[in-house]
Structure formats: structure tokens, C-alpha cells
């Protein structure tokens, strides 16, 4: 069972390139005709739309290959005061030692949000990190394990957490 998207409870996030998902369209070969390239672009847009709808609705039935089980990243909600502090630090100039760059941002948000990874032996231990104001987060070794599997996982989760936190604002 996949936990539905929620604004209060933990929910499941599925990586877009999980091998259990339906394969994305294959790139046309070099020298492909314009029609073939157009068809590919259309197929990519359809695939991407389908993926977005799965994320929005939590209904993954048509996207998961029958008999396969994707990894489920259980995400919680980042404490808003931590998120504000992080957002402010991303706006600092690159020369500031307090600046948080894009790569570090993705790791940090993933660590703050990640509660569990279902379908693997990876155990997520959450504890206060003295290097980050004592914020409770997943430990760095979990991120290292994910990076070894596929470095894009952390970027995708980080981007998701960032956009979700920014999307929900009465001023938006």
C-alpha cells in the first residue's frame, strides 16, 4: 500500500527512475526524422504528465510494472523554522560561509524529510545533528548509501521537498 500525499502525516515518495516503474520512452536514434523526434517529445510529455498525476493522486497502479515493487521513500514534513533558516541561507552570496548551495540543499532537505525507505535493508536513524543547529534528521550515511545507488535520488527528493514547502503559503 502506498501512503497518500498528506500535509500532516508521512507519505510515500517514489523515485521517477525506479526500475519497477513503466519504462520511459526511448530516445530516437541519431538521424531520426522530425516526425520521430516529435513523437518522442509527445511521448515524454505524456510520460511526465502520467508521473505527475501519480505523485499528485497517490494512484500508481498504471505506472508500476505488474509484479514489481518500487522503493518507497517515506517522507515527513520539514519543520518550518528549519526550512525558513535554510531558505534564507540559500539566498546568501556564494562567498558567505553560511551559504547553502543547490547540491547541499538537496541533501539537507532529504535528510530532514526522510523517515524510512521501505523495500530495502537501509535503516534510517533520525537524530539531532550538531552541525545543523541540532535539527533532527536522517544521518549522512543513509544519504551516502542512496548516492551509491543513484546520485539523482537525493536531488529529486530534495527538489520535491523544496517545491512542496514553497507551494503551500497563504501568500502564494
Amino acid at each position, binding site marked *: 500500500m502506498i501512503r497518500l*500525499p498528506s*500535509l500532516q502525516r508521512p507519505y510515500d515518495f517514489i523515485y521517477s527512475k525506479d526500475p519497477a516503474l513503466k519504462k520511459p520512452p526511448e530516445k530516437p536514434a541519431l538521424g531520426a526524422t522530425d516526425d520521430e523526434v516529435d513523437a518522442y517529445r509527445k511521448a515524454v510529455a505524456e510520460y511526465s504528465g502520467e508521473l505527475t498525476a501519480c505523485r499528485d493522486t*497517490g494512484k500508481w497502479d498504471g505506472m508500476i510494472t505488474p509484479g514489481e515493487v518500487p522503493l518507497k521513500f517515506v517522507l515527513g514534513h520539514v519543520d518550518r523554522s528549519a526550512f525558513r533558516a535554510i531558505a534564507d541561507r540559500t539566498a546568501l552570496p556564494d562567498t558567505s560561509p553560511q551559504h547553502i548551495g543547490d547540491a547541499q540543499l538537496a541533501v539537507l532537505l532529504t535528510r530532514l524529510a526522510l523517515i524510512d525507505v521501505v523495500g530495502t535493508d537501509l535503516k534510517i536513524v533520525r537524530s539531532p545533528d550538531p552541525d545543523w543547529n541540532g535539527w533532527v534528521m536522517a544521518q549522512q550515511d543513509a544519504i551516502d548509501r542512496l548516492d551509491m545507488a543513484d546520485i539523482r535520488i537525493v536531488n529529486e527528493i530534495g527538489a520535491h521537498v523544496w517545491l512542496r514547502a514553497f507551494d503551500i503559503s497563504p501568500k502564494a
Partner: protein
Amino acid sequence: MQPLQRQYLGCGYLPPLDDRKRLTMWQPPSGAKGYRGPDPTVCAGYSTTLPDVREVALAHVHWSKGNLGAVLGEPAHEHLSAAIVILDGQCNAMQHWKMTPESEGGGGK
């Protein structure tokens, strides 16, 4: 219904049309006292049935009776609280529109 028709109606299950001007989906009532927010990007039937939107609608009912904490069993996360504020603001705006006569830009008699 054909996929292209659904795209014209802003179906969230299909890729958005390149030309947004050709969308013919439902829009909130506009006019002088009408909706002033950003244009909807998907069909209202899609967005209003999303799990987190339904969660907010339900939470809003309990929140309006001062009972949200008891129902959740924990303090509401700021994401949920912010979404409730958005929904409540829009509910008030809709009621105001409905109570304002049509001659003054509202939707009332």
C-alpha cells in the same frame, strides 16, 4: 471523451496543452467582486479530489469547530495550517461574492 478533449478541459491526468489560451475548463466566477487569484492550471474535478486537498477540506471542518487538535491527535503541521487558512480565506471570499448583488459585481440576486 477523447484525450484531446480532456486536454482542452485541463485534465490533470494528461500533459497540459502548449497553448493555454485554448483551455475551456471551468473557471471560478470573476467580475468586480469575483475571484482574483491565479488562473487554475487543471480541471477543478481533478484538483478538488486530490488526497491532500480532501485532507484540508476535512481538517477545515474540524478546525472551524475548534476541534482539529483532538481529531489529529497531535498539533497541526504548518503545511496543514497554511492550507486551512488558504481554504478558509477562499470560502469567505466565495460567501462574500454570493452575498453581493450581481449589479455590484457579485453573484447574488
